[in-house]
C-alpha cells in the first residue's frame, strides 16, 4: 500500500503512537498514584492547611 517506503512509514507512525501513548499512560499512572497517596495521607489524619498550600 505504501510501496517501497513502507519500511520507513510504518515505524514512523508506530513509534509516534508508542511514544505518545507511553507519555499519556505515564501521566495517567502518576496521577492515580498521587491521588491515592494523598488519600492515604489524609486518612492518617494529616490535614492540609486552610486555603491550600503550594
Amino acid at each position, binding site marked *: 500500500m505504501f510501496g517501497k517506503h*513502507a519500511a520507513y512509514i510504518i515505524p*514512523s507512525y508506530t513509534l509516534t503512537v508508542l511514544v*505518545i501513548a507511553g507519555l499519556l499512560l505515564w*501521566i495517567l499512572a502518576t496521577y492515580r498514584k498521587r491521588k491515592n497517596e*494523598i488519600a492515604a495521607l489524609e486518612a492518617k489524619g494529616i490535614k492540609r492547611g486552610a486555603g491550600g*498550600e*503550594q
Partner: protein
Amino acid sequence: MNDVATQKTGFWTWLTGLANPTRFMGLADRWIPWLAAITTALLALGLWMSFNAPEDYQQGATVLIMFIHVPTVWLAMFCYLVMSISALGTLVWRHPLSDVALRAAAPIGAAFTLLGLITGSLWGKPMWGAWWVWDARLTSFLVLLIIYLGIISLGRALEEPTQAAKALAITTLVGFINLPIIKFSVDWFETLHQPASVSRLAKPAMDVAFLYPLLTMALAFSFLFATLHLMNMRNEILRRRIRSLKLRAAAGER
C-alpha cells in the same frame, strides 16, 4: 474604552486567581475532558486527510511521514516557548503557577523533540539518503533535546522549591537562544534540510492537498500538547501537596 479596560483587568484577575492551586485544579478537571475529545477528533480527521492525500511527485508515500514530523517539530519548539514564557512568569511576575507550568511542560517537550528526531531520520533516509547529517538545523534540534533533558535533570536534583523555580527559569531562558537558531539556521547556512515552505508570508509553497492535512495534524498535536500539559500540571500540583503533607506529618510527629 471602559470595556477594554475592564476586559483587560478581568483577564489578569482571572490569571492571578488561578494562582490558587485548588481553583486551577478545578479548572483543569473541567477542561481536560473537552481538550481530550477535541484532540481525538482532530487526530482522526487529520489522519484521514493524510492518508487520503495524493502521493507527492517527488516523495511518493513518504509524504505521510511529513504529516507527523513537521507537527512534532513545531510542537517541540512551541513547548519550549511556553516554558520560556512560564520562566518569565516566575522571574518577573512571580506567578506561583509558572513554575508548575514549566516543570510539567518539560517532559512533554522532550518527548516531542525525540519524536521529531526519529521521524525526521526516518523521513530523511528515503528522501535524501541519509539517516542523519550534522547540518545546522538537525544539530540545533538535537541540542534542544539535550537542553530539555538538562532542565528535567536539574528539576529533579533541586529540592527546595523556591530556589529550584528560579534556577529552572533562568536555565530555560538562557537556553531560549537555541530556538531562533533552529528556526533561522536553514536560512543562514546552506543545509541539506529543506527551507521553509509553510511560513512564507505571501503564499505557502506547498500544494493545498498537502497543506490542509498538515495544518490539521498540527492543530491536533497542539490540542494534544494542551491536554497533556494540563494533565501534567495537575500531577505537579499533587506532587507539591504530597510533599507539604509529608513535611507537615514529620513536623507534627516531633
